[in-house]
């Protein structure tokens, strides 16, 4: 008889152990996830496509901005419909080398531009906790897939919060690594001074394990650096000797829901019980100027990066009597409203007469934000705040108001601009929906984030399985049982 695998609860680490001990074959494991996808993804729409693979490790889902050789990669855009990369992104190659077979490509806001996955040209992804709500974005497909047990782990990409925010809204763990620690070669570019690839999983240890597989210098991406120390899988449940800073502006920003504050304060209290030293600190200009700075830098770089979609070398092409008419029509037909908005905003911010006042000024604001974080992290080992000001919002609620949507990333943007690593771990429920706790560390301080995140995760005992599915899932059982 085929083994029964509870994919809602099985961690990637435990799945790997089962494979190594021969209690499960990779094909059986893969088919358990494909069954879960068949059962639940009709409602959720996490995957844009699934694929076959005969790799012998724990399978993985990749956000559809990551180039996969021979597998269509659209970045959630019509303009790339039918595009089949002829090479693998470095991260796709590294997971393949580690034996992690590709399960499929996950939904994303078009070109990773959005906070709800509603901007995908292929339809929105739904939140596993409540399908009337968004999973966050842009990596809503990867985050929802992990929570729904459709993939044991996944990769996302993060420019201003696209890994951490969906993980917060879906109730799992997401890491935006230090800028420069993971190769972007073969990853569809959005804003090159900010983009980072990172892991999403159910536990901090799984995230650390996946990070260790993909991180480190890549000769094909000159912005990458060698990690200063090897990745350590966290074990300690104590936080003795750890200094945790609570930045006032990140914790008292306008728009943070009461239930979110309550859950975060409870987690901070637990950290103290575990031995951490907790104190207040300040990032006086990072929150007020972070979002404006981000919405100048990111669109400016996007307008440059997206100039390559011209209907000549790949992607869709519209008819035109002349070369220029073909290009202009291709871009109008191929891009959805959000990329157009950002291309226009960025082109404006870079245009003659405005460059210094907008893009130039934003680059200087970023210097201030970097400095403020440096000062706070000189006094504290990690900084803590909510990941998202709110729990998952309803599909459609912010879709018509770009500025309301942009505010979703208010708390994740500052540390992204500073190039710092951040991890979101689930810290409780508010209105029956997950609340994410954001931990920010120093450059290349991932091991510290894993240590603090793991200790808190053990103490918080958050159940990552959405309440509506708990009846059919054994909360104690992490091992598969053979049917009689």
């Amino acid at each position: 008889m085929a083994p029964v695998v509870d994919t809602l609860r099985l961690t990637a680490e435990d799945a790997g152990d089962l494979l190594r001990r021969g209690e499960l074959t990779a094909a059986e494991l893969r088919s358990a996830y494909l069954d879960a996808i068949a059962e639940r993804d009709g409602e959720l729409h996490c995957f844009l496509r699934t694929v076959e693979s005969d790799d012998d490790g724990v399978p993985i889902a990749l956000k559809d901005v990551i180039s996969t050789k021979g597998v269509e990669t659209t970045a959630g855009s019509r303009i790339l419909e039918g595009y089949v990369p002829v090479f693998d992104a470095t991260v796709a190659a590294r997971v393949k080398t580690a034996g992690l077979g590709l399960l499929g490509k996950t939904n994303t806001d078009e070109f990773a531009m959005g906070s709800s996955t509603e901007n995908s040209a292929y339809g929105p992804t739904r939140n596993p906790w409540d399908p009337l709500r968004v999973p966050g974005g842009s990596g809503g497909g990867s985050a929802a897939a992990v929570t729904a047990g459709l993939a044991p782990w996944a990769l996302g990409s993060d420019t201003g919060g696209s890994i951490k925010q969906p993980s917060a809204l879906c109730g799992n763990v997401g890491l935006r690594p230090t800028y420069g620690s993971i190769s972007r070669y073969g990853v569809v570019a959005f804003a090159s001074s900010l983009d980072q690839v990172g892991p999403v999983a159910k536990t901090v240890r799984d995230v650390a394990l996946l990070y260790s597989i993909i991180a480190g210098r890549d000769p094909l991406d000159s912005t990458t650096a060698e990690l200063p120390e090897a990745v350590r899988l966290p074990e300690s449940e104590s936080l003795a000797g750890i200094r945790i800073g609570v930045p006032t502006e990140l914790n008292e920003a306008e728009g943070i829901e009461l239930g979110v504050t309550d859950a975060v304060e409870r987690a901070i209290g637990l950290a103290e019980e575990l031995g951490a030293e907790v104190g207040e600190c300040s990032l006086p200009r990072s929150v007020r100027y972070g979002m404006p700075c981000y919405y100048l830098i990111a669109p400016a770089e996007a307008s440059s990066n997206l100039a390559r979609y011209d209907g000549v070398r790949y992607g869709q092409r519209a008819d035109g009597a002349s070369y220029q008419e073909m290009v202009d029509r291709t871009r109008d037909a191929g891009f959805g409203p959000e990329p157009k908005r950002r291309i226009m905003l960025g082109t404006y911010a870079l245009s003659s007469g405005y460059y210094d006042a907008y893009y130039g000024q934003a680059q200087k604001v970023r210097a201030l934000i970097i400095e403020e974080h440096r000062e706070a992290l000189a006094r504290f080992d990690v900084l803590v705040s909510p990941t998202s000001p709110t729990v998952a919002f309803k599909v459609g609620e912010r879709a018509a108001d770009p500025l309301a949507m942009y505010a979703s990333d208010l708390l994740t943007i500052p540390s992204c601009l500073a190039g710092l690593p951040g991890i979101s771990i689930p810290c409780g429920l508010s209105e029956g929906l997950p609340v994410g706790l954001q931990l920010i560390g120093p450059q290349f301080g991932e091991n510290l984030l894993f240590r603090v995140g793991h200790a808190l995760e053990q103490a918080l005992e958050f159940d990552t399985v959405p309440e509506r599915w708990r009846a059919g899932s054994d909360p104690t059982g992490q091992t598969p049982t053979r049917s009689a």
Partner: protein
Amino acid sequence: MAISREEVLHVAKLAQLALTEDEIAQLTDELGKILDAVSVVSELDLADVPPTLHPLDLMNGWEDDVPRDSLPLEDVLANAPQAENGLFRVPAWRQ
């Protein structure tokens, strides 16, 4: 801070976007609001602050200059909307 219809048309031309009338109207409104929101960065006096190109303190990741194989031509052209004789085919520059 409002942005005029003429400015939107100028930027659309720079961005190579053939916008529809509806899009022009909507973007004129939305870009004005977004520019209002982001313009707060001008409150700060940053004359002495050097700009950041990216957040990592890392310059010039050199590699040895070793010849490597390129992609085969058929792979390079595999995704082209139109290709001919080993070249990308596009409409004439001027009609």
